[in-house]
């Protein structure tokens, strides 16, 4: 928790930078749209106004980042270590792993049917998130839940509610 506070500013600036990039793209695109019809009541007016509002607000958010670190903050001598810690705290292994498994699942749906792909996805994701508490009982629970949930979703949504499954 303490380290998370130490790297707060760098993470906050990184996210603001991401939104600055989005704002710049919006400004450029809004300008292009505005050029198609240069008048007050044109398709580009609202996007342009909104992009400018976003630009002003993101500057406000930048100015609002606390300039001082907490008093007991760790002093980083290596900038690389600071950046590495910031990335680790912004995207902890649980989050990165979950996103990675989900992306794999989405790709697997192109090649496999819903039922096997979902059982494997649930198994992998649950095993990954439970890796610190894995025991025989938990393993059995995970296997059972993966199968039951997949079957339940298939029957209730796919058959009963006629929802198209991937």
């Amino acid at each position, binding site marked *: 928790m303490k380290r998370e506070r130490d790297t707060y500013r760098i*993470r906050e600036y990184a996210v603001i930078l991401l939104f600055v990039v989005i704002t710049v793209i919006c400004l450029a*695109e809004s300008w292009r749209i505005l050029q198609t019809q240069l008048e007050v009541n044109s398709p580009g007016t609202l996007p342009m106004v*909104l992009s400018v509002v976003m630009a002003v607000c993101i500057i406000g*958010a930048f100015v609002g980042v606390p300039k001082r670190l907490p008093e007991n903050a760790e002093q980083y001598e290596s900038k690389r270590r600071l950046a590495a810690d910031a990335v680790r705290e912004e995207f902890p292994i649980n*989050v990165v792993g979950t996103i990675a498994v989900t992306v794999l699942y989405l790709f697997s749906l192109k090649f496999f049917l819903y039922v096997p792909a979902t059982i494997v*996805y649930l198994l992998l994701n649950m095993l990954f*998130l*439970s890796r610190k508490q894995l025991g025989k009982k938990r393993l059995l629970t995970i296997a059972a839940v993966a199968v039951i949930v997949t079957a339940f979703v298939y029957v209730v949504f796919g058959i009963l509610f006629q929802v198209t499954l991937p």
Partner: protein
Amino acid sequence: MEMLSNAAIMFQQPALILYVAAGVWIGMYVGAIPGLTGTMAASLLISFTYSWDILPALAVMIGVHVGCAYGGSRAAILINIPGAPCAIATAFDGYPLAKKGMAAKAISVTVIQSVIGGLIACVIMLLATPAISTMALKFASRDYFLMATLGLMLVATLGGASFSKSVFSAALGLLIGCVGMDPTLGIKRFTFGNTYLMSGIGFVVAMIGLFGFAEALMQAKDIDVTAVVKQKIDKLKPDFKEVKRYFPLTLQSSLLGAVIGALPGTGGDIAALFAYDFAKRRTKNPEVPFGEGAIEGLVAPEAANNATVPAAYIPMLTLGIPGDGYAAIIIGAMYIHGLNPGPTLMATNPEIVGICAGGLVLANILLLLAGYTGIKTFAKIVEIPKSILMPIIMVLCIIGSFALNRSMVDVALMVGFGVMGYLMRRHDFPVGPMILGIILCELFEWNLRRALSLSHSNIGEFVAGIFSSPISIILFLALVLSLLAKTPLPHRIRSVLAGKSSKGARANEQ
């Protein structure tokens, strides 16, 4: 009278009663499980109910809304972790009561108070909605535009997050709503050559990502943190003598909850905390001190947070502005079913207001039954580890976003919105204004451009028009006040007034 007969529709069809009951039951458990939120459940529900008829879809969503508002209190009492933000205040006295072996009494009080609070707010909703609707029918395009701006501003300013970050989110939401073909001239906007984006980004996809998938990622991040402390509970029994005794506090808290709930951007959490504070000030000599298991500390927040639910439907149905995040999703569901929540709803589909009110009354009555039963099953469900629950939520998010258009692009967009929502939540960029921006974009732009056309594309004439109509003037002043409230000005005025009054008091003493 007509509204009452419309409200009775919900009670006349057994299938609708079952849908509401199922919704209440699901909502109660979703609200109780820490990490699962009502908005997350609603964003998933909308993707599964979009092909249903409007009445069953509304019945389930209303049931879930009422169930969620109550459900959070159970986890707050039993494990000291509020299942939903609106149950934070309930944990202050609920958990101490449970530790004394009085969990059953605490749960019993919360059930009955939630139901009474909800029913009082239903009456307020039935009385206020037609009056506000009649006024809203006189709205011109300019007023719709001002109303949408005001709604966005209120959601952005009342949420408590940084003003600049909130407005940024709202503006980004509106821009996302602009993606696709321009509605009047067919000019491509923000499509970047992608044919898929020409039809725009569906707000349901954004909703599932920002509320559902992002929440699951947030929970995955803190998966090892939660510690569950189990409590033993006996049979639940309602105590009507106690209900009578605390009724004045129930009534006051419900009214407070209804007023706060009707303000766009607020919600059950703010109402419950306000009511708790109010009860603390009002109760001079509680039998048990507040924070150690005071019954008043349960009565006030529970009555208030459930009263916010029907109240949130007042601005949603009459003005098209949601009272809370859940109401924003119901607006989306109504749009999908071809309804237009807002001033014209009373003219085009007047029955919907009565049906919503009937659904809310029915959901509160059913909550009374659901709240007093299934306590052992409940204890088991609350204990499901997040590491098992979150992957299931993610699968539902993926299926829900795919089901809309049978498109994997939607699923990819949903995951993208999920990661974006995760980053936004981590850095206090509220996602509520963004969702509202996406939903309101069409209403916002259409009316702005119509009002500009009527003003001959002349900004001066457009501004002058605002000062020519009383409704526009009121909306404009409300907008200015909501902006001024975020500046240091009110603070300065208050400190100047406080300074003057203390000087006056000193002069009187001398």
